């Protein structure tokens, strides 16, 4: 029943089944996730067929051979086995396994060993306890939690090839509509690629338990049109905006411990432990997607991060409300 429901929903694909959400693996939007989707339909079909046949046999035997109400009490004939029958039901599973293996191996090699084209964008993903760092080595950009990549079309293929590593424990990078997940392991570099076919926002989150706030280590991937992406790159390459109107906030930021963990390019803040804040105001969320990037949320976050994300490694600095207000005002200018 379950299998049937899943395969109907997967193959039919209409929204009616509710399986086309923004984190559904049955709503693929890139080449690797699409080929996984096609393979999954084949596998689901095969297993469904096995389930119908074998499950049917079990239920038929269970119903057909129950003790009749008017049973004479004589034991049924005792049969101890049959080599022919047993051989036949050994060979059929062997054939199924071979077919399944060949179909699977083809997709494994197609995805895992795909060559990296020269037009590819390179991104280094670094997992941290409970946020994501993204570095674009060729573009000299560092950002956090919200990954921007260009759309990749057949005419203009611009896939994104990622190298993944971790600064602390094992995480796992998973944006279901764009690619299967890949673990983010310390002292090791893993690789993953994707080529989003349509612009938009794609959601995901960390998929390997990594500590207390694993649940709020969310991921957002923005797939931009070539123009949007170029504009975003240009903006990100700028140093932090310095607005004299919020000098008090900046001073507060730089004299507090904030600079030990955070970087704002063009200022003395060079910390590496927390997310880069150079363009914080251009991000839609804070705390790795745990809250929208509004002034109110930012103030709460700076006042006491546990209010939004209990167990976050950012400490509460016990600031006065004026200090919180000034720092928030400063951060809000960092477009």
């Amino acid at each position: 029943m379950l299998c049937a429901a899943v395969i109907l929903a997967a193959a039919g694909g209409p929204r009616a089944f509710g399986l086309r959400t923004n984190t559904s693996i049955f709503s693929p939007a890139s080449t690797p996730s699409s080929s996984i989707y096609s393979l999954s339909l084949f596998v689901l079909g095969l297993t469904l067929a096995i389930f119908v046949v074998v499950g049917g046999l079990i239920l038929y035997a269970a119903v057909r051979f129950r003790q009749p109400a008017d049973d004479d009490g004589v034991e049924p004939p005792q049969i101890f086995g049959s080599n022919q029958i047993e051989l036949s039901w050994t060979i059929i599973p062997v054939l199924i396994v071979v077919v399944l293996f060949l179909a699977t191996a083809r997709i494994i090699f197609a995805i895992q060993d795909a060559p990296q084209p020269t037009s590819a964008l390179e991104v280094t993903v670094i997992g941290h306890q409970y946020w994501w760092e993204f570095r674009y080595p060729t573009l000299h950009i560092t950002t956090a939690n919200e990954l921007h990549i260009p759309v990749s079309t057949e005419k203009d293929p611009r896939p994104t090839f990622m190298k993944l590593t971790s600064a602390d424990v094992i995480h796992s990078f998973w944006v279901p509509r764009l690619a299967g997940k890949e673990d983010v392991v310390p002292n090791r570099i893993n690789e993953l690629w994707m080529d989003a076919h349509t612009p938009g926002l794609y959601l995901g989150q960390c998929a390997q338990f990594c500590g207390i706030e694993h649940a709020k280590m969310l991921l957002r991937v923005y797939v931009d049109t070539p123009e949007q992406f170029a504009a975003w790159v240009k903006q990100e390459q700028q140093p932090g905006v310095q607005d004299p109107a919020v000098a008090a906030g900046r001073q507060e930021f730089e004299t507090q411990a904030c600079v030990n963990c955070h970087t704002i390019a063009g200022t003395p803040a060079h910390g590496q432990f927390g997310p880069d804040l150079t363009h914080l105001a251009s991000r839609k969320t804070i705390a790795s997607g745990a809250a929208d990037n509004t002034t109110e949320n930012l103030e709460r976050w700076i006042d006491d991060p546990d209010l939004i994300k209990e167990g976050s490694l950012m400490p509460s600095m016990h600031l006065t409300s004026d200090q919180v207000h000034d720092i928030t005002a400063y951060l809000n200018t960092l477009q």
Partner: protein
Amino acid sequence: MAEGSIPLPGGLGAEVTPPEAFDGTWLERLHSWVVTVDHKKLGIMYVLYALFFFMVGGIEALIIRIQLFFPDNHFVGPETFNRMFTMHGTTMIFFVVMPLVFGFGNYLVPLMLGARDMAFPRLNAFSFWMSAFGGLLLYYSFIGGVGLQGAGNAPDVGWWAYSPLTSRAFSRGHSTDYWALALIVSGFGSIGVAINFIATAFCMRCKGMTLFRMPLLVWLYIVMSGLVILAVSPLTAAQVMLTIDRYLGGHFFDTQAGGSAVIWAHFFWIFGHPEVYVLVMPAFAVMNEVIPVFSRKAIFGYPAMVAASVGIGFVSLGVWAHHMFTIGMTSIGNAFFVLSTGLVGIPTGIKIFNWVATMWGGKIRYRTPMLFAVGFLVQFLLAGLTGIILSVAPFNWQLHNSYFVIAHFHYVIVGGILFALFAGIYYWFPKVTGRMLDERLGKWHFWLFLIGFHVCFDVMHIPGILGMPRSIYTYEADRGWTTLNQIVSVGAFVQGIAIIVFVYNIVHSCLKGREAGPDPWDAWTLEWSTTSPPPPYNFATEPVVRSRRPLWDLKHPDDPDEPLEA
């Protein structure tokens, strides 16, 4: 079963008297249980111990399900939630299902072999107490809270405890130490009992009980014990390494010093995958006894069943990295583990077909054990198929660590193993206590548990497909997971109610159940030839057998089984 049972030769019916009740104060009685080396008493203690922790682990599961009932729920905090799923997993695997299957084996293997005890009774008692102390050590972490010499609280690293999350740097306090020590201690107990099963099966058989006349249950316990020996030992070694890292400043899993996080995953799953088969072999074992007796037919293809079990045992040692398709193995490595995992499906398929063939042409009596057995067959089939789905590496890249995986392995462990063990409890309870479990309550238990199980775990596959990862204490409201999680939680509570019925049935039937007599199911293996409960020495005279079904031969002198050559 009184009705329809054939009077046994030897005029058994009239002569049965239960073993004299043990006289003495309650303290003396308790003492007799603590110091016992009797395999039957130890078996009962294993099962009671497992049932106690089953309640505890179940309550942890319900706390998890309440927390996930609403998005952004605040029933428990993230720290508590993480402890709950860590303790739930560790408890259910190591302190529920393992002691449960060890208890079954302890009670049944010597009886089925016509032996008077296990090969090493004192090692047997030692093993039980090691397992028991392991569980206490794990749960002591709760009590040894922050107040006690800075000890931590319950472990919160997941039951798979991937490094380096377990290192001193990321797991402060002592909770992870309790976890590692508990598994080392109970691991020695498991290895001890496994050695005992193997020595018992090979060295304690009664006259005429050649290897190929042994009940299939004993064969499966041999395979299970082999897997415990080859799989729990690596886990123990890995836990020792973890303890060296945490206490002596070692670097086995220290990524800062050049150590590898992946090697822990390998070590853990070299244990972890065969462990599934450690748990499932006894479930197969119960099926091999229950299905023939209630279908009134001999097991179909005994040699094939033995070969398939041994085959599954061997293959299961070479599939561990299918838990690690996303950890960054090469394409060749991934392809290898796809193939090896697929191979497990072949002997497993043979087993299912042989069980169906055993039912085929029989006269199936639907008493509670057989209901659970049919439930097992259908659900184990589905669990196997979702296992095949997960073994397809690219599909696994999407499904790994999602709720689909959670649903899959609960299908195996609850829908498969637990259903089989329930069948076993209903089947052998009369032998152990001398009283029948209540049929009406048993059917309530079955149907409630079946419904709760399917509501809970069928639906649980879908949030995984919709991208819900495991181990998260809360989720965003906009992901479309809310309704599904609510259905799952309702199913969990229905199962909880079924378990209450089950526990009530056990207590009620222990006190007031119908007298069972020695052979209530009209069965064929040696344990049914002695009184219920059996005397401390099991058999007044040591049995002699000449076929696989000694009691069939006695009941059907006109149509005995083919005697097999020794």
